């Protein structure tokens, strides 16, 4: 178990710190941003395609269909005049009437076409042009009616004169109007084409911009991830070196004491039963300390091994706590601590591995002894609570010791982490206790939380899920002591 220090990590610049925070979430962020950007790009492209399609269809409808309409109008206008002139070519009244009929049919189609054009016209220029065409066409039809009447009456010369003097000029005006309408359609088509071109150009710029942004962002993210990995590797190497140095130091002291005591006994320096008992006690205590260190390292290694499997079963909370208290009774008593425990009655059983949970709580209790300060008081409280609609059992271990600085709270669960202040205070530890405890808690489906105030003490709370109904029959069985196995 460790205590946080001010800064045991490799000194990093503010940029690296920011990168580390960023890159902790960077793969997910990268994926999210790239996905979002891709969706955005897709949306933009689809929208632009749709817009371009709509604009093209409108352009086609307004220009191509409009030109076809105007072409039809021109043809029908010519047909009106042509049929009138055909009537001049015969003296047969029946044929003349048939030609007059054809001319009137064609003029009706032209009149309808002009009305349709006026209905579709939106711009003032279009409306004015349509009205002028309507006027000129009506003027031509008046002349045409007179010419037809003259032809049918048999006054061919009069009809020809009338057509030359009135019909030709008025029909020319109609033809000019139709040409003007056609020119207007051409202009509008050109404008629409320019708009579609602009829209297409805009789409390409947008697409290129977004792709460039995506590339830059992805490059930056990859760089950040790589840099963070490098920093993490370097930091891990430093931590491991610190760990090796710390362990060596922690092992060297008790081993030196044991060696010294053993040499004294072997050399016959120690005499008398009382002296031997004292040396035996020293050797036992130092051996126990070494064993504890080795056990912690093995336990950490076991929790890091993903192949490790826990045996989860319903456990009575009081049994669990009593087991922990029994295992740590001597340590607590030796350190001169008193334990105040409060276990709520009728607590439901929890799901967990007895050995692992015992180890976890023992680690918390050991920390409370180690960092409990001069108060010599440890509180253990077990209670039930509901978090986000889910019932859980909380086992809180509280001390009134040195507490943890707020800046170190985030680091104390990192493996091998030991604060400079704790190291300076010659408080021994591996820096693995809390990391191991949290791994165990999470493996049980729970979590480990901490509340601490510098100089006032800390509370570490183990949150465990309540055993489900279908597991309850097994809860009736007494917890197996032999289940407390070293992982």
């Amino acid at each position, binding site marked *: 178990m460790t205590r946080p220090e001010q800064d045991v990590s490799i000194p990093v610049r503010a940029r690296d710190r920011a990168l580390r925070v960023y890159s902790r979430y960077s793969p997910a962020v990268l994926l999210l941003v790239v996905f979002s950007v891709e969706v955005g790009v897709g949306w933009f492209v689809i929208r632009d395609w749709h817009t371009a399609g709509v604009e093209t269809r409108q352009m086609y409808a307004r220009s191509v269909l409009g030109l076809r309409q105007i072409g039809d109008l021109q043809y029908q206008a010519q047909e009106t005049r042509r049929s009138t002139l055909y009537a001049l070519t015969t003296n047969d*009244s*029946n044929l003349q*009437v048939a030609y*007059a009929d054809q001319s009137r049919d064609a003029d009706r189609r032209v009149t309808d076409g002009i009305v349709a054009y006026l209905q579709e016209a939106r711009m003032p220029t279009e409306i004015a042009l349509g009205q002028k065409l309507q006027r000129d066409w009506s003027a031509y039809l008046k002349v045409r009616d007179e010419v*037809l*009447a003259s032809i*049918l*009456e*048999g006054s061919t010369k009069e009809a020809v004169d009338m057509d030359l003097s009135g019909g030709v000029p008025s029909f020319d005006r109609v033809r000019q109007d139709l040409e003007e309408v056609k020119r207007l359609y051409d202009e509008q088509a050109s404008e629409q084409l320019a708009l579609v071109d602009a829209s297409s150009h805009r789409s390409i710029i947008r697409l290129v911009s977004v792709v460039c942004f995506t590339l830059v962002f992805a490059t930056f993210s990859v760089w950040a991830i790589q840099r963070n990995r490098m920093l993490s590797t370097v930091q891990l190497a430093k931590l491991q070196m610190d760990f090796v140095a710390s362990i060596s130091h922690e092992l060297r002291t008790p081993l030196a004491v044991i060696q010294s005591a053993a040499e004294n006994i072997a050399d016959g320096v120690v005499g008398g039963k009382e002296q031997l008992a004292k040396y035996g006690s020293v050797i036992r205590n130092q051996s126990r300390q070494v064993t504890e260190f080795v056990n912690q390292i093995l336990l950490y290694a076991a929790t890091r091994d993903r192949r490790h499997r826990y045996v989860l079963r319903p456990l009575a909370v009081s049994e669990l706590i009593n087991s922990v208290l029994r295992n740590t009774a001597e340590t607590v008593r030796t350190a001169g601590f008193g334990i105040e425990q409060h276990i709520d009655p009728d607590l439901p059983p929890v799901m967990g591995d007895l050995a692992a949970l015992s180890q976890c709580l023992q680690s918390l209790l050991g920390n409370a002894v180690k960092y409990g300060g001069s108060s010599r008081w440890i509180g253990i409280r077990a209670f039930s609570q509901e978090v986000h609609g889910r019932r859980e059992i909380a086992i809180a271990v509280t001390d009134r010791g040195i507490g943890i600085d707020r800046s170190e709270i985030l680091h104390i669960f990192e493996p091998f982490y030991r604060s400079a202040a704790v190291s300076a205070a010659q408080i021994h530890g591996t820096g693995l206790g809390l990391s191991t405890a949290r791994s165990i808690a999470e493996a049980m489906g729970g979590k480990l939380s901490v509340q601490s105030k510098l100089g006032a003490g800390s509370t570490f709370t183990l949150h465990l899920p309540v055993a489900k109904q279908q597991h309850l029959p097994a809860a009736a069985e007494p917890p197996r002591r032999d289940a407390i196995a070293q992982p």
Partner: protein
Amino acid sequence: MQPWFRRLIVAAAAVSCLYGVGMIAAEHGSDEPEPDENNLAIIVNTANPIDNLSLPELRKIFLGERAHWPNSRRITLVMMEPGQPERKALIREVCQMSESDFTRHFLNGVFTGEVFATPKTLASPVGVRKFVFNVPGAIGYLRAPEVDSSVKVIKVDGHLPSDKEYPLHILAERAAR
């Protein structure tokens, strides 16, 4: 039989008769008299201000002895081809001639200059109607049911073809035949 019972029967019979007459009248439609399909309607262009012509005036026109309408439009005669019952009826009832006299009249009139215009000859009633529709000064004739709104029917001696007193009938022509 009691007198009151006899009066009741007479009253019921009278009511039944009145009801029957009313139903028959209702079945036969409106107050507007239907034009007789054998009446010969005289038609002009809708722009022609003339509404009524007497039989002598009509005769003068159809014999080509009148050149212009009161609005100074030139009169154009429209006839159907020889042999058609409408033409026969017009020549007999308006011109009071036979077909050969009518033809001769125009040949002679054109030669002497007494006739201002020879009639235009069309093959069908539809052709006649369309011709009159197209020519403001045209005058022609059709069976009364063949008339539509594209042309105007003028009264003859103050009577429309739907009137009983209307003087021009194709039926008489058929009977004569």
